[in-house]
């Protein structure tokens, strides 16, 4: 990271270091959001449909875990992956895969809770028909997720937004190592602590632009799908 205050030129100039950081940020937050969606969509749908003892409790818990502090999640993953922790032998601490894993944990409750709400609202409408058709649990989940897919884009984007924006877990688990685990958010935190606020703001704007682009792509995909579905 060049230490010049000319944030603008850095941002606009296609600096290769910046490019690498942007790339890593995107890879990590998109991977985490995708993993969280792959796990969270079915889990959220299941939570909306299933009736089992403790379901209400689990619902509250998942909804509460939208408020998991990133630092705490980061620490928990850190303690697991640390050399003195149970998974230390994996040698994953301070690597991108560890960052993805930690962010997935952080984002998962968000995706599950929002999916649960969306699917539950649809389930109210579909319940009788699907029950009358004797559609089994697995197929219910698939059907509701498919039919709610356009609304679920918002759940995915909420997860992605959280992953892209947060700094706590990636800082602790990744270590903010230059050229290796430095992401946009940890770079912003670093520049802030160096007192280079203009550069920090400039990087922040770059990050926001990236997030906007990802959102615009997701929305366009959704739009295309909606038009095709009629």
């Amino acid at each position, binding site marked *: 990271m060049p*230490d010049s205050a000319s944030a603008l030129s850095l941002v606009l100039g296609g600096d290769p270091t910046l490019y690498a950081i942007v790339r890593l940020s995107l890879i990590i937050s998109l991977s985490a959001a995708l993993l969280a969606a792959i796990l969270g969509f079915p889990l959220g749908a299941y939570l909306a449909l299933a009736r089992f003892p403790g379901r209400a409790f689990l619902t509250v818990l998942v909804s509460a875990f939208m408020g998991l502090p990133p630092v705490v999640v980061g620490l928990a993953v850190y303690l697991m992956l640390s050399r003195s*922790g149970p998974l230390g032998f994996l040698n994953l601490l301070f690597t991108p895969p560890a960052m993805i894993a930690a962010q997935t944990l952080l984002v998962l409750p968000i995706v599950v809770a929002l999916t649960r709400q969306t699917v539950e609202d649809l389930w109210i409408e579909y319940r009788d028909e699907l029950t009358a058709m004797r559609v089994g649990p697995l197929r219910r989940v698939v059907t509701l997720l498919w039919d709610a897919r356009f609304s679920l884009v918002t759940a995915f984007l909420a997860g992605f937004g959280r992953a892209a924006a947060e700094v706590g877990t990636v800082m602790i688990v990744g270590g903010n190592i230059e050229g290796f685990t430095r992401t946009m958010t940890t770079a912003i935190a670093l520049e802030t*602590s160096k007192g*280079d606020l203009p550069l920090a703001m400039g990087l922040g704007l770059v990050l926001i632009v990236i997030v906007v682009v990802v959102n615009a792509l997701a929305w366009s995909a959704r739009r295309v799908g909606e038009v095709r579905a009629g």
Partner: protein
Amino acid sequence: QDQSIVVASTTSTQDSGLFGHILPLFKQKTGIDVKVISQGTGQALDTGRRGDADVVFVHAKAQEEKFVAEGFGVARHPVMYNDFILVGPKSNPAGIKGSRDIAAALKTIRDKQVPFVSRGDKSGTHSAELNLWKLANIDIARDKGTWYREIGQGMGAALNTASSMNGYVLSDRGTWISFKNPGDLEIAVEGDKRLFNQYGIILVNPARHPHVKKELGQKFIDWVLSPEGQKAIADYKINGQQLFFPNASAQGA
């Protein structure tokens, strides 16, 4: 084989840009990647204690010696020093500008209840600050009031805070020189030899953590302590000012 080591260090070394200057030189010579994690001093030592770093590079002599004594580190080597400075508003609200007596200056600040920002994070700088209050015969735990702000953050954040509160803050010179948001702050007190700030480097004990890359880590330590490494440190300058003063050979540092 993976030619990289992890060094746990403090925010001051990272924020001052020193690593950005010396690591490429080391890499050029040895081909070894040094991954620097910059954390609070306590956290950096803890990272070493857990075996998550190969080398610890911090500035809190007492804690470092404890670290080695407890068997987590092989040996502590002095590397370099810089000095602390008392930074404060240009308007000189405490009237201590230009003083070379840190104890007297702190006393004045306490008496006039001028805003003072403390790191409050058990870092090396924070320990040094608490020591200085003691030297000034002030029981800061008793005397602290709304004028004394413990912010529990790194050096940069402390400077940012002091800048916006128009208060005094103890900083290491390296961070201060490279700091980009000085606002109305300037150096108020410097040059007192009680403001000395010694850095040490320690190899994490492979007997404790067998996976520690002791050869590569030792290579890094040897290089830092070598005339070549020491020169690299001395050569790091911002605006023509030297930030760190190598003293690997100094006795008892």
